[in-house]
């Protein structure tokens, strides 16, 4: 192999801007502009989950069923189709919740997710406790924290009774920070 021919070096001194260097800089600037313009839609696309949340698209009123499905003084598992869902969600769009009918039209609707780390809590009517299988969180029948690592009581959905039907405002996974669709409640914290 022969040596590659020597490429003509830019011999101009640093102080003065050669024609070639100017064009390189303009080229870079144009590339930068193109990248910036392209970045805007990409960024918007990427943060779409946040934008949709800010527009309040993550909660909707849905019906859980007629009042007669929930006997007074009992806590029952109810399931609903998550209102914020797309076709490919499959089984994950079925969401459970615990409905406690205190009396009359007074309810408490608890999220299934433990306030500690989201595992599904189970209701034990005999002892009147919700127990979590993951890290041992336990709650009383009114959802307040009884023992274990949860930092607060169970998350609650906002509910209303319309035309003899129990409705809740649901849609998003309740965590300590995403409780927008859930009733503000801190009974567990205060105890």
């Amino acid at each position, binding site marked *: 192999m022969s040596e590659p021919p020597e490429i003509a070096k830019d011999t101009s001194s640093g102080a003065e801007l050669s024609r070639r260097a100017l064009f390189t800089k303009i080229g870079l600037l144009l590339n930068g502009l193109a990248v910036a313009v392209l970045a805007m839609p990409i960024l918007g696309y990427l943060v779409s989950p946040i934008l949709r949340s800010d527009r309040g698209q993550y909660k909707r009123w849905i019906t859980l069923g007629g009042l007669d499905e929930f006997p007074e003084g009992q806590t029952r598992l109810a399931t609903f189709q998550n209102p914020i869902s797309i076709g490919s969600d499959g089984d*994950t769009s079925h969401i459970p919740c615990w409905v406690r009918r205190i009396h009359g039209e007074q309810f408490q609707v608890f999220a299934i997710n433990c306030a500690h780390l989201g595992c599904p809590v189970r209701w034990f009517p005999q*002892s009147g406790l919700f127990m979590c299988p993951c890290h041992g969180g336990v709650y009383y029948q009114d959802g307040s924290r009884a023992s274990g690592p949860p930092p607060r009581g169970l998350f609650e959905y906002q509910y209303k009774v319309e035309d003899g039907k129990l409705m809740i405002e649901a849609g998003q996974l309740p965590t300590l920070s995403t409780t927008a669709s859930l009733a503000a409640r801190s009974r567990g914290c205060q105890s």
Partner: protein
Amino acid sequence: MSKLKQIGDWLEERLQIGGAIREAASHPVPRKSARWWYVFGSAALTIFGLQVVTGILLALAYDPSASEAGNSLQYLNHGVTLGWFLRAVHGWGSNFMVAVVLIHMCPVFLFGAYKFPRQLTWVLGVFLLLMTLGMAFTGQVLRFDQDAYWGLGIGAPITGRVPLIGAQAVHMLLGGPIIAGATLSRLFTLHVFLIPGLLIGFVSLHLLLVLKLGINEWPMPGRVVRRSTYEKEYNELLQKDGVPFVPGAIWKDMVFSDGIIVAIMACAAYFGPFGPSGYPDPTIVQTIPKPDFFFLWLDAMLALLPPEMETASLLIGPVVVIGFLILLPFLSGEGEKNWRRRPIAVVTLLLVVVSLATFTKLATYSPWSPIMDAWSGDPLPVAFLNRRTPLQRQGALVFQGKQCRNCHAMGGSGGRRGPALDSVATTLTTDHLVRQVIQGGGNMPAYGKNLNPAEVTALVSFLETLHPPNRPPARDASQAAIQQQEKPPPAANR
């Protein structure tokens, strides 16, 4: 033969990489470094290759949609010839990869290989470790079974504890308001495109640095690393006592890598693939989510951390650990490499290994979780019911029926969330027992609202019988004295 050589020459004339390859293969390594201790890095690389190949093969049949993922895994397991085996190899390969990467870190740390001039190699290695763990977690999620669903269910609340931007972070992680199809899609993207792409880039850099800077020499006590002299000393060592990597050292790497591949295939053939463990249907609440093996230690820590420390630990802990790992070569870039002269390094490593092993072991039987069906599944041993009064047996019924067993073991079965109660009467008096049952406390819920007075009386009378025959039940001395005083003197009674 000559035809083959012709083709080779034709290619070489254009590519001109033969020299570079020969140079890389025959780069000298210190003779004492051609040891079995130095085979883990190449083993990790081999497993990575295996994961890439099996991963691509699995992608031929896997359907990354929440509604179909489970079905496609069943199809892989039962419909595709040897699909189960490839799933098993990929799953076991993942476990072996995490293990080998962690093991690889140990000698590197103990032999001071992260010191000057190999700091960047170590830092890249830290990123490779994080990416390996990221692959393990996202891979588990792609199974999209019950455990995957609730694994995400745990990941989201942890993310949600980030201050200020917690909600946004959760929505970004899940790709929407809740664990659903969009969540699987983005974790699929991470597992199949993003992290592997980064891994390939970082592994290449990591390897390039090993070639450029040379493998770490066998650490000798007293041979101290100094920035000014190290490279000269290392080159002298190579000249004096170096062997070419091929064929001087590579055979050990090859033998070990082959052994690992065989071990992965053996595990895959014997134990089979992981899951799928059940439909990712959250309405099936009769489930006990468990993370994969390499995240069990985390599960244990999440259960055992005091609640008030939890958020701080979850958010600051990783920053501290990763920060320490990244800063390590800059904090101690020079000095002794031999472990005999670095007691703190040895103790640190032992502490980490023992802690992780202990947490992992604990998490395999998670004593902090109530056993959800102990009350209905584990009958009380007959010994606790023999020669008891009807009231005491009624108490035993209350004990069983009110789910006390879910947290309290009796006769070795039942939950371990609370203490075993086989001999509770030797430590708690009647009054203590009543108070504990009604008010709870010490991590026990209060049962005052859920037991009527008759049930409490029966339960406590049963609990009072729980002491070994040769040890009397606990007795409140002051209470006994008061009762003695209150009793009218026998003489006056007459």
